[in-house]
């Protein structure tokens, strides 16, 4: 399977890349890690006339700390996320979850920004971004703007990005002191997308929940934040009954597409299991 013909462009700065996207118009696509786009091109699901390869733009790679912001370059690979000392210390959910994405070789190429910008509800970073209250920095022809994760994912393969935009950075804050976290992902095999997955970040104060995020992967047209499930636990001293109630609330917002991984009923049931496991594991990590 060989992709259809296209013109290849390799800008060396974000400015140059945005300029290319503006002049080439809707026939251009950004090439990040390529592990979603190239397979889609092979199948003729995508037939861009121009590919703008942003792999050689150094400013898009790596993690830096500015004040209390942790800024992750959109072209930081999954393996770089896994290895990054700042993320492991301050936002350990991201490296832990990245280990569950694809496989070792794919994680060398696949990027956090590509995973988010693709808008695929099966990708893992959208739910992780929601769980981390991430802010997306977007460069476009009229300059840069910031969009919170909660307003970024609009539908399946549909995000706040315009055709001439590039997602450049993902900004997160360190987890609250002593916070617990977990990402539970049910998948059939290494490299598979989630049948159902759940991210949880939780902090306690005096034994009661003072911060909680519960987000879901591949259980609707976009990644989902389970607000009602969070409300069940917020301010409470958590017990098994409350965890089951929270899982039931999370299951209420699930609207998964039926596919080879199962029908909607099965996936929703598995979502409930992943939510319970993720809450339990996150609570066990609270220090």
């Amino acid at each position: 399977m060989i992709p259809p013909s296209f013109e290849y462009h390799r800008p060396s700065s974000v400015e140059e890349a945005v300029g290319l996207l503006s002049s080439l118009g809707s026939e251009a696509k950004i090439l990040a890690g390529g592990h979603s786009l190239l397979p889609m091109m092979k199948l003729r699901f995508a037939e861009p006339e121009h590919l703008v390869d942003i792999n050689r733009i150094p400013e898009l790679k790596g993690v830096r700390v500015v004040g209390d912001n942790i800024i992750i370059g959109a072209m930081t690979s999954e393996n770089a996320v896994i290895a990054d000392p700042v993320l492991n210390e301050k936002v350990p959910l991201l490296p832990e979850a990245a280990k569950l994405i694809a496989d070792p070789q794919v994680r060398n190429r696949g990027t956090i920004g590509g995973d988010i910008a693709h808008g695929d509800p099966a990708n893992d970073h959208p739910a992780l971004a929601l769980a981390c209250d991430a802010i997306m920095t977007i460069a476009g022809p009229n300059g840069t703007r910031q969009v919170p994760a909660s307003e970024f994912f609009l539908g399946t393969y549909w995000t706040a990005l315009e055709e001439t935009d590039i997602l450049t950075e993902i900004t997160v804050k360190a987890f609250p002191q002593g916070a617990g976290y977990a990402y539970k992902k049910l998948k059939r095999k290494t490299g598979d997308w989630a049948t159902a997955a759940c991210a949880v970040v939780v902090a306690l104060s005096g034994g009661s929940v003072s911060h909680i995020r519960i987000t879901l992967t591949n259980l609707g047209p976009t990644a989902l934040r389970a607000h009602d499930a969070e409300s069940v636990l917020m301010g409470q001293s958590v017990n098994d009954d409350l965890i089951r109630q929270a899982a039931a609330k999370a299951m209420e917002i699930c609207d998964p597409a039926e596919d080879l991984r199962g029908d909607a009923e099965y996936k929703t049931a598995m979502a409930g299991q992943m939510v319970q496991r993720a809450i339990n594991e996150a609570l066990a990590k609270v220090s």
Partner: protein
Amino acid sequence: MAKQIVKMNLNGQEIEQLVDSRTLLVHFLREQMNLTGAHIGCETSHCGACTVDIDGESVKACTHLAVQCDGCEVKTVEGLADGGILHAVQEAFYEEHGLQCGYCTPGMLMTSYRFLQNNPNPTEDEIRVGLSGNLCRCTGYQNIVKAVKSAAVKLQQKESATA
């Protein structure tokens, strides 16, 4: 057609080739450079039979464009042996019978080679995770894992012999 000049260091040799932008690295290697070691298995970045090394990282060559390798150092299984002397990883796969049909072997060798560069003394669990992007339909993986363990020992012995 959208052709580009691509320069790369391929198995230690500087090369310059005219490449169609849509040519995947695995096709470039096999059809243009006659290096048929990297195999085409699933073509969907699952099986790992096409794994090669690009700038010190294992990459699936079926999901990478040849033009993206401009200026890069690329190593294929053909570049593993040193003048007819097998690399420790190849020797270990041979001795431990880490293959049956051999289709996955070039990818297994290249992934194992890079994995052991990054983790010279791995546990069995680490080996299994490290090779989780390479599928084998013959061996059941047992002898492949044994081979990687054995290769780790061989490489460490070589290291201490030269130290």
